[in-house]
């Protein structure tokens, strides 16, 4: 059922190296993300997966190498600027505003799209009101999409973990990203929650055409939903290809899945 990857290169990570003191988190890693695909980044703990996402989202800057997004060099941008370009992300540890309702949390995903003066916003008048309604309507689409109508008015902090993850994804989708980075979206979920999440990710990809790069440990999930898999180990890319290719790759088996003792 997978689509053929459509329409060209969205993002290129070119020979990126990230150093923390003496520690080399990423060493000359190059990854391309194609427009419209679902890319999985896998690898053992400490392989540099999250670092790679952080480099893309502008949280870290590479010691060496370039990041090209939609054909332009974006190596040195700060996170807000990266977000404004259409790259949204979720975090490994849920990062919601716990005291705010789900609805308000998701509305924050629209902040970058809101214009207008502080005064008009405060008075909720004229264009400010119109704008608020438009954004609210869009957020409602996301709420419907993720089937979280029942918790619209619930403070995010009160929700179980699986739902918080979903709300976080909703907030990221609310920003209408071109590229969505998901850091372990299914960590700590049970089988049913994982299935739901997989469906949502595939639907978002199909419905909004969002390109998705995700870090995931569950190999079943990775094999099911990704078009392509990149494998990192000790900061190096050791494989890059379709799920089947990666599964058969000897280097991956040795490094990641463990050496067979048969």
């Amino acid at each position, binding site marked *: *059922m997978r689509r053929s990857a459509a329409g060209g290169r969205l993002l290129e990570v070119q020979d990126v190296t990230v150093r923390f003191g003496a520690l080399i988190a990423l060493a000359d890693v190059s990854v391309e993300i194609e427009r419209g695909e679902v890319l999985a980044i896998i690898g053992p703990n400490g392989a540099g997966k999250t670092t790679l996402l952080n480099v893309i989202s502008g949280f870290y800057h590479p010691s060496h190498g370039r990041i090209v997004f939609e054909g332009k060099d974006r190596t040195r941008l700060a996170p807000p600027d990266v977000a404004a370009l259409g790259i949204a992300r979720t975090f490994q540890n849920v990062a919601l505003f716990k005291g705010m309702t789900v609805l308000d949390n998701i509305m924050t995903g629209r902040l970058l799209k809101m214009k207008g003066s502080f005064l008009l916003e405060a008075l909720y008048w004229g264009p400010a009101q119109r704008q608020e309604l438009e954004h609210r309507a869009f957020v409602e689409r996301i*709420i419907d999409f993720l089937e979280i109508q029942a918790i619209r008015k619930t403070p995010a902090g009160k929700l179980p973990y699986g739902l918080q993850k979903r709300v976080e994804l909703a907030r990221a989708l609310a920003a209408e990203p071109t590229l969505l980075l998901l850091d372990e979206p299914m960590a700590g979920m049970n089988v*049913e929650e994982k299935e739901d999440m997989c469906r949502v990710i595939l639907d978002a990809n199909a*419905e909004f055409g969002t390109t998705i790069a995700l870090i995931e440990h569950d190999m079943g999930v990775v094999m099911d939903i990704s078009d392509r898999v990149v494998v990192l180990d000790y900061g190096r890319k050791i494989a890059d290809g379709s799920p089947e290719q990666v599964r058969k790759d000897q280097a991956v088996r040795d490094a990641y899945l463990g050496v067979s003792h048969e």
Partner: protein
Amino acid sequence: MTSRARHTAPPAPAATALPPEEDTFPKLVRANALRWEGKVAIREKDYGIWQSYTWRDYFEQARLIALGLAALGLARGDKVAIVGDNRPQLYWAVMATQALGGVPVPLYQDSIEKELQYIVDHAEARFAVVEDQEQVDKLLHVKAQCPHLEHIVYDDPRGLRTYTEPGLLSLERLQALGTTFGADHPSWFDDEVAKGTADDVAIICYTSGTTGTPKGTMLSHRNLILTARNAVAHEGLRSDEEVLAYLPMAWVGDHIFSYAQSIATGFTVNCPESAATVLHDLREIAPTYFFAPPRIWETILTTVMIRLEDAAWPKRATVRFFLDMAQALERRRLLGQQLSPWRTLLYPLGYLLVYGPLRDNLGMRRIRVAYTAGEAIGPEIFVFFRALGINVKQLYGMTESSALIAIQRDDDVRLDTVGTPLPGVETRISEGGEVLFRSPGVFKGYYKNPDATRQTLEDGWVHTGDAGFLDGDGHLKIVDRARDVSRLPDGTMFAPKYLENKLKFSPYVREAVCVGQDRPFVTALINIDLAAVGNWAERRGIAYTSYTDLAQKPEVYDLIHSEVARVNRSLGEDDVLRGAQIRRFLILHKELDPDDEEITRTRKVRRGYIAQKYAALIDALYGERDHVEVEAKVTYEDGRTGTMRADLKIREAEVFAG
């Protein structure tokens, strides 16, 4: 017809004939569209906002769906499976099918593939109109086994854009086909509607059945329209009622309330946003006319009790005091006893402080008529809601009677009867004690099952399978399913449902199965309510990991023991039922689930199956040991099965003498 002359005299005269211009639902909807052009017929909460459709919209939308189905070749007599949550689009599809002389077959939306396949195949459905991807996936999986199924139409396109299966199309596309088809065949729709007659099959409702495979109950337009109208007249329902359509469309109750009565009366149906938001949407809509099976009333009561437990003590004490007082008052009223004057005086104060705000909070402030139906309700639950001043009444009916047989009259509600037969309904009791009835609503037979039809329908009388009797005032009393009632060795009558309902009054007990047929005494298998017991455990700092773990905590056993003791105490005070006290019980490791075939989709316990499946547990209840190991097969949502193991404790329950 002189029947309209006297509507003051009870019983109201029953309608028995239909004028040909209003003898089918499509004709009635067309009349509504002219009469109530701008009046809201149906609402749906979507994207957080209530979207309204007038009777004109209802008719136009259904007409386009009908023309679309006609374009795909739907012929008179073809079956159309309808699967999904209550959605305006699906109600329109029901009418659209009827307009072309087709027969809608609504299915339970949470059916697993096997059940879906059985009904779609048995009904020989050529078309399916479904809500979303979930239902499409299920149908695509079973399509190979359903040779008649050609077209699947879906409403919500989410996730389906990349599907390329033949015969699959969106409702939008279907309506577009309809527009084109209508332009080419301008009189098609009206011609087809004109061909419809009162005795055409309007719907086939597959009854879940506590035994055996589902049977397709065929109901005609005449059955449904007359039954709906008679009840509307009896209950004084008006065109400005608001109802919430939240129970499965496959259940005949929803069909009569949200479809037949709405169309016959012109009142507004409201579809909740999702299954999870029902209680919230209930509050927003504040219906005037409301129906719920005992299960829902219990759930609402449980949420009230949980919230009450969490309240600060002065509040809790006040609420408790007034609730207890109102219930005592209501209980005496229902028994026809003298009411104590001070309680009567205090009631308005209670209304101001407690009952009114509580009703408002539950979305029950505007209710004029409410029913509990589908199963017997626990008396305590019934009294609770009536004590708040809500006009809840018991209703008795079944699919084979177009849902309605008897309803309690507003001024004559009692605890232990289901009221008097509706206008047009005759009831009698067979020699074996079984309730029989005859009415304009009597079904046309089971689809493709003449044997079962013959067993149930005799000379126009329907065998309900319920044991019951008519009391001196003509009130019908239902005891239990006829085959479930038995006698214990000491001669005490054992009616399991009666005991189970007493247990289920406790917010902590979600489901209970009492055993006693051909046994020396009564025992019970109990399901705890995860929400209520979980909340209770949290407040006491009892840690648990899962349902199974929580169920087997000694503290939880103590809690449930006190509930069993409460039931036993009340039985001990009853001279007739003293011998039916529960001697031993255990708490089940998993919830009874329709996917595991332990209860029906309308949440009726399937005793035969449970006796078989849990034979080891039941034997242990009658043995010496105080625990029993269990290994159970569970069916997951996607139809896969797995096993789980648990060690269940067995407790002796306290027994009371008179």
